[in-house]
């Protein structure tokens, strides 16, 4: 596309500064059911987001249709959008950061692995899941997806940035039966180096999780010392990080108002954003063209920074932290590659001192059970009782309730089971002094 034509048309129509981002993507996906490929998907897509400044006001427009009229459509959309804006702040686009830490995270080998090999891999996973335990009743699905994307950023101030990336997602899901009891288990693997995927341990993880669930009971309602498995803790940390958005804080919608540089969590809690980590979530510029940077968010329990884009940074008299991200029709706040520091302690050592507690391995319904403004949450959970320092009977159909800030203040420690989840959060299992469990 000839973006100079877009900038020229925008200028001609009174858009003093303009920006255009184009994302091209393609994907391949397939899934197995009963030893046959029952679903095979391929796709190619494109998405254009444009924004600009008209009389100091910000406007935006986006489309997936690229033809001779696209620039006209985008320019008209920006003018209409900016025309009704009542924001007091004067908008301006970004000239560029001093330095960008560009890395090549695209793995060309992934696409070169023959499709037949990928199909053989999911067949192998399915066969091994069926054979794992006689209680495996059905392999609900084994699927492989591969995505490739190219993001391009241009603005009328001459800033030009590009990033190419790719990744795969492998998912295995089973259900099992024991008498009348039905249980499910699943897991996924995410990365862009398929050669390092460990099929045997992937299958074992899903199978072990399934068989351990049989005989689940409800514990009495009450407050228990609680271990949150890494995936569960990551889900909760994700909401906490959302609350560090300066936009939410400035709009008085975050429980972190006025908490900057104060102790908000146990001194064991250290959380950092490291967008420059070389993995599938790597990103070296944000949606305003600002260079991203690694930074501490919570250090020794103290809140060190909010996450800023250029507009919110200006309001607080600081500089952008490189966290500008499209959020509907405006550039809001986003993040990637969050790390919560773990310890060297194995899981068994961490739970050893717990006389009676719970180990939560799965939660459901947090999306609607979380009040992101107050940090209060309540959701469905399952896991195990902990008795005399060891895992005991499985727990099913219980609820986990708490408050995010209270939870972080009650962190007693972490083990060494670090895991990267799909929301780009890497953390270990967390030991919380006490949490409310609802059961019988």
């Amino acid at each position, binding site marked *: 596309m000839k973006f100079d034509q877009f900038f020229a048309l925008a200028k001609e129509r009174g858009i003093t500064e303009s920006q255009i981002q184009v994302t091209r993507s393609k994907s391949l996906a397939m899934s197995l059911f009963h030893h046959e*490929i*029952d679903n*095979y*998907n*391929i*796709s*190619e*897509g*494109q998405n254009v987001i444009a924004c600009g400044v008209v009389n100091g006001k910000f*406007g*935006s*427009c*986006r*489309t*997936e*249709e*690229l033809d001779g009229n696209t620039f006209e*459509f985008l320019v008209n959309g920006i003018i*209409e*959008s900016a025309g*009704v*804006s*009542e*924001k*007091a702040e004067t908008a301006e686009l970004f000239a560029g950061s001093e330095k960008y830490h560009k890395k090549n995270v695209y793995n060309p080998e992934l696409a070169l692995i023959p499709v037949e090999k990928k199909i053989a891999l999911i067949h192998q996973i399915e066969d091994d899941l069926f054979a794992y335990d006689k209680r495996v009743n059905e392999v*609900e699905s084994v699927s492989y997806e591969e995505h490739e994307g190219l993001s391009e950023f241009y603005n009328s101030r001459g800033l030009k940035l590009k990033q190419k990336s790719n990744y795969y997602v492998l998912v295995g899901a089973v*259900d099992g039966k024991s008498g009348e009891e*039905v249980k*499910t288990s699943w897991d996924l693997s995410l990365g862009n180096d398929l050669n390092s995927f460990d099929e045997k341990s992937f299958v074992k993880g899903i199978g072990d999780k399934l068989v351990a669930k049989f005989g689940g009971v*409800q514990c009495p*309602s009450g407050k228990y010392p609680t271990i949150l498995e890494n995936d569960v803790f990551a889900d909760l940390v994700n909401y906490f990080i959302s609350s560090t958005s300066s936009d939410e804080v400035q*709009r*008085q919608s975050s*429980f972190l108002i006025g908490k900057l540089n104060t102790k908000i969590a146990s001194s064991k809690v250290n959380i950092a954003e490291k967008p420059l980590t070389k993995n599938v979530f790597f990103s070296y510029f944000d949606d305003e063209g600002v260079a991203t940077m690694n930074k501490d968010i919570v250090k020794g329990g103290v809140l060190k920074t909010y996450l800023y884009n250029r507009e919110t940074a200006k309001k607080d008299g600081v500089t952008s932290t490189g966290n500008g991200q499209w959020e*509907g*029709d*405006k550039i809001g706040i986003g993040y990637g590659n969050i790390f919560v520091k773990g310890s060297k302690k194995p899981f068994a050592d961490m739970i050893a001192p717990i006389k009676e507690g719970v180990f939560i391995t799965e939660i*459901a*319904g947090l999306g*609607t*059970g979380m*009040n992101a*403004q*107050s940090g*209060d*949450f*309540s*959701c*469905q959970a399952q896991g195990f009782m902990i008795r005399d320092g060891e895992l005991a009977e499985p727990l*099913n*159909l*219980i*609820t986990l*309730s708490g*408050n995010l800030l209270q939870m972080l203040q009650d962190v007693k420690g972490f083990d060494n089971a670090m895991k990267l989840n799909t929301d780009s959060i890497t953390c270990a299992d967390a030991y919380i002094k006490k949490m*409310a*469990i*609802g*059961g*019988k």
Partner: protein
Amino acid sequence: MISKSLALKVLNEALATGGDYAEIYLEQNDSQAVTLENGKVETSGTRRSYGAGIRILNDLKSVYGYTSVLSAKSLLTLAHDLAASFTGTRKIEVKSIEKQRVKVTNPIEDHLTDVPTAEKVALLKECYAITASVDKRLVRIQDVFANNFKSIEIYSAEGEIGKQFENTEERGRLVMVAAAADSGKIETNFQGPGRYAGWHYFKDVLDWKKLAKECGEKAILFLTAKECPSGRFPVVITNGWGGVIFHEACGHSLEATATAKHLSVFSDSIGQQIANPIVSAFDDGTIPNEWGSNNIDSEGHVTQKNQLIRDGICVGFLVDKFNGRRLKMEANGVSRRQNYKYEPTSRMSNTYIAPGKDKAEDILKDTKLGIYVTNFGGGSVNPTTGEFNFSASEAYIIRDGKVCEPVRGCTLIGSGKEVLMNIDRVADDVALGQGMCGSASGSIPVNVGQPTIRIKEITVGGRGGKLE
């Protein structure tokens, strides 16, 4: 969006390797949203989603692909690449395409896309003023009006004569969110009425003044709410949005996506009693101008009123074309998708528990100690185990038949089989509530609904200790 002659070529390319059904789904969706923050226009944006999805079925196999480039070359390449995943020889040569008549069951006279942004802004400003006047502790008020206009063309073939369908969908939604803060506590309230309707409905029929006031009042009320108790006790659920419990506890588990592969707790339930005999339930995509209604589904089938449960007996599933093959059941107009990037599958539209004979006030009066749930955030379900959860955004304690203090942080969990049998009272005040449902084929607008019901015992989670 494409010519009939190109569609014919693409269908034949797709069917070249033995596919027994091919379909091209073309879509242009223009949407607009205006957002006010504390009474001032924060953003207003338009976006266009545009593309095509091609699907080929071959017995129990399905291949699907999409592209946002609608040129002949792009569509023929996609059809060719998809067809290459089958190795057979042609069974069907499509010779012609006949346009099908689509009956408009959701008429709209005044299109939302024709309404000037300034008029929408004026309405939102009135909403803001009403909410803001409730209390000074309301620190953030958001008012949003979002609307979309979707044009769809479907070409499908499973024989010599292909079919062409054209349809449009148009929906609007008014969203109000109020956040109240006091002494370090923050509570929010959400109102989000939506409809397959024009501007007249939103401006003149919908009681937005009442909703705007309620939005502010409830955010303030819950600032002083106690934490919800936990344990197992009776729960009375109000009409309308309360139907999310049926949506999660049962609806998803009756979708052919789950039942066809025997992955649902209700896979073998047709003819079986799965609910208390006082419970009957429907999924009805034909209710004129409702949020989940449509003239036709994503495969071109006319939408239907499908009974799912009659007097506690399971009498039907929601069946799309592909999963219907495994079930040996006919598709019943429920195949839906978010957009062309998703392969369509069986989904709910307007799903509700039918009215019973009780009165809501009698149900409350007859409950000594329990929880009264009047609004929800939403929920989720594992269709295989039937275990579901949903979170109540507004709940109150019932003592001696009276609605008492509000409680916050309330989650209800259970298994679909258990909870449907435990519904012991059904009132006559059925109503619908609007939401977005996320599942295999993306996020789609659905109505949930029910009259006031009572569940005689269900697990309630909260941080408030025992119910006393």
